[in-house]
């Protein structure tokens, strides 16, 4: 899908800090509500974006407080397209995987939650100067 098919809704850049995640969640919740997402759809989007941002903070920036995350939300017909851009080292996509849920232990659930909550989650070519671009899509229901 080309950029021209998308309507830009909101773009924010925030410090990659745990205490800024609530700001991202609230922004996503209001944006999803504005375009008519149901409560369940909003919850799914908020959870997935929050988990993806956590991965950026913990694994991308390794808790470096100087990191930044850009959240770019667009509407493409009946689908929300959310681009998460960071400036950390590029992710080795093959290493991004969910753990076996039968192996009950703390941690390792973020990727599973993202995949369950969104229709698509895919790393794409980041803009010049950025480290990673994760694109999440969700049909509005």
């Amino acid at each position: 899908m080309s950029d021209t098919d998308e309507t830009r809704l909101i773009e924010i850049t925030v410090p990659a800090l745990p205490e800024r995640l609530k700001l991202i969640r609230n922004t996503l919740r209001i944006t999803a509500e504005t375009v008519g997402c149901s409560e369940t759809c909003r919850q799914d989007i908020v959870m997935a974006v929050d988990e993806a941002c956590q991965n950026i903070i913990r694994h991308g920036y390794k808790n470096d407080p100087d990191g930044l995350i850009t959240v770019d939300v667009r509407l493409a017909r009946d689908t929300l397209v959310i681009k998460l851009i960071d400036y950390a080292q590029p992710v080795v996509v093959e290493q991004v995987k969910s753990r076996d849920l039968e192996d009950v232990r703390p941690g390792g659930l973020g990727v599973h939650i993202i995949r369950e909550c969104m229709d698509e989650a895919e790393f794409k070519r980041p803009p010049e100067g950025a480290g990673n671009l994760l694109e999440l899509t969700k049909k509005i229901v």
Partner: protein
Amino acid sequence: MAYKVHKTGDYAIVELTGDVDLERSPDVRKLLLEQIGAGHAVIVDLSGVSYIDSSGVASLVEAFQNARKRGSDFSLASVSTAAMRVLELARLDKIFTIHASVDAVTGG
């Protein structure tokens, strides 16, 4: 996020409210492990939890496993809809002991 701890008999009831996220889950982890370490059977009341992420769930799993190693009880009660959705996604709703209410356990 806020929390309250109160004791009823052998039980420590830990009430969590608000968002249990990456910012707050280290506090939850510490609190739960302290209660288990003090020898209490722990019930975590999740009725007031509006949001919980994978880091919050990880704190519950760690506490649950720690309690099991010690042979003490650890359970959840009054799980909010938002928290239950995450537990179900993580397929942990069948792993944790979940009570309809704290009173159902303590007879309060």
